[in-house]
């Protein structure tokens, strides 16, 4: 079993961190994981994405042309990645910033107002955690409690940020779960 997901958005939206938390959760569960960033002459405001692969077997190619899933935080990312997803995959779409829908009938779309939820929870910067929570809620690729535990560990150097991030993960998770039903 191998799951691939692309987290994509503007630089600064925290897609790299969201992917890292997911990858680290997989590692803590003794899964095989790869976190692969897009890298280039990029900066805040530019596009950024990372691919996370979680598998039971050793991961051969880290380069995935057609990932199963995507979590897209802005419109260019939706346009870039949603057409290439495999049938049966999941697309978590940040409806706060993306006015359009993926034109796909063969994937599960999870709409989430990530920025709105994050702002209401106390920090717009935690929109990435809403996305991550929604992704895990929809796919159950890792158990939610393992995700929460890893996120707390990653954030332990900034304890003030923990409550808002946990709230965001939790709310996202609920939306993902609802989409799954």
């Amino acid at each position: 079993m191998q799951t691939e997901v692309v987290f994509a958005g503007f630089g600064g939206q925290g897609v790299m961190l969201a992917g890292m938390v997911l990858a680290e959760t997989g590692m803590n569960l003794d899964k095989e994981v790869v976190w692969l960033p897009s890298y280039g002459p990029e900066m805040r405001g530019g596009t950024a994405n990372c691919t996370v692969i979680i598998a039971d077997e050793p991961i051969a190619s880290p380069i995935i042309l057609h990932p199963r899933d995507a979590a897209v935080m802005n419109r260019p990312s939706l346009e870039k990645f949603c057409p290439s997803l495999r049938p049966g995959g999941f697309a978590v779409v940040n409806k706060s910033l993306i006015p359009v829908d993926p034109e796909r009938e063969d994937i599960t779309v999870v709409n989430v107002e990530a920025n709105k939820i994050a702002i209401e929870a106390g920090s717009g910067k935690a929109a990435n955690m809403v996305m991550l929570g929604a992704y895990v809620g929809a796919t159950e690729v890792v158990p939610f409690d393992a995700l929460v535990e890893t996120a707390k560990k990653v954030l332990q150097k900034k304890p003030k940020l923990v409550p808002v991030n946990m709230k965001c993960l939790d709310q996202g998770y609920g939306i993902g779960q609802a989409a799954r039903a």
Partner: protein
Amino acid sequence: MAKVLMKGNEAIAEAAVRAGGLCYFCYPITPQSEVAEYLSRRMPEVGGTFLQGESEVAVSNMLYGAAGAGVRAWSTSSSPGISLMMEALSYIAASELPTVVVNIVRTGPGLGGILPSQGDYLQAVKGGGHGDYRCLVYAPSSVQEAVELMPLAFDRADRYRNPVIVLGDGMIGQMMEPVEFREHEFPPLPPKDWATDGCKGRKPNIVNSLYLDPVKEEELNQRLAAKYERMKQNEVMYEEYMTDRPYEVLLVAYGTTARVCKTAIKKLAEDRIGAALLRPITLFPFPSARLYELAKPVKFLMSVEMSCGQMVEDVELGVRCEKPVYFYGRQGGLVPTPEEVVDQVKKRLGKGA
């Protein structure tokens, strides 16, 4: 110790520190600058030396000096920076000094781009600098393997008194994977009684690569040649994939592209096409003897690379030109996909794509 999720560049840095590579010189260049970033924090913690030189030329000559003084000195860079180091690397080889240089290869020629490439194969494997010398070359294919190869690289550099190159690519440097740092045990090394580390109470040691006497120079050349022969006898490393069942195609690939080939082989198996992989871990010495054995049942071999086919000639030599050797590769920072490799194999088998 437990696994940690680390970027290849950072893992290489930590592995080197644990292997006693406590003297690190560098000049930043994408896609390997995280090594320097990491060590700028880490070296002060372990009492090591972190020094950013004014250029790669300076850095490589610092390596020459520090290695001559008998310390475990090493550096990392990427393709254009490595080219600047080639003069000193030739001097280091001629002076029979140990050093480790990690090349996280980017595209070229020239300044190129910052995306992954395997275009420095020939430079690493066939010499690179001037004169009659070779480097031992390791090519990791995962972050964990990079971590395993660093202590080996330092040990072999000391044992052979020769530069060792660890040839990664942008993907290996930038990718995060779980790693575990294990203890490595090596047999004791001979004392560095050649080092210029203070000559109070003994005769001075001299580190030199100038030989105006042709007889003495020839002695050095032959001593080096014998050393490279010993490497060929003792240091060949490779991984085989799916060679324990029938196959009609042998892929040869190293580093990141070897992983792409593994996925391609799985996909080919779904179509009942038997393919196997030989992944050289040492690029010099090349696993020629094993390649020859593994090629016996196949219709053809295919070298898969992120270059225009730099490894093809070594594959052809390995199979003694007895079987066709095809090439598939991408350049410019593009990575071959498993789907492309599958198509290429099918095309060569006449099975269409």
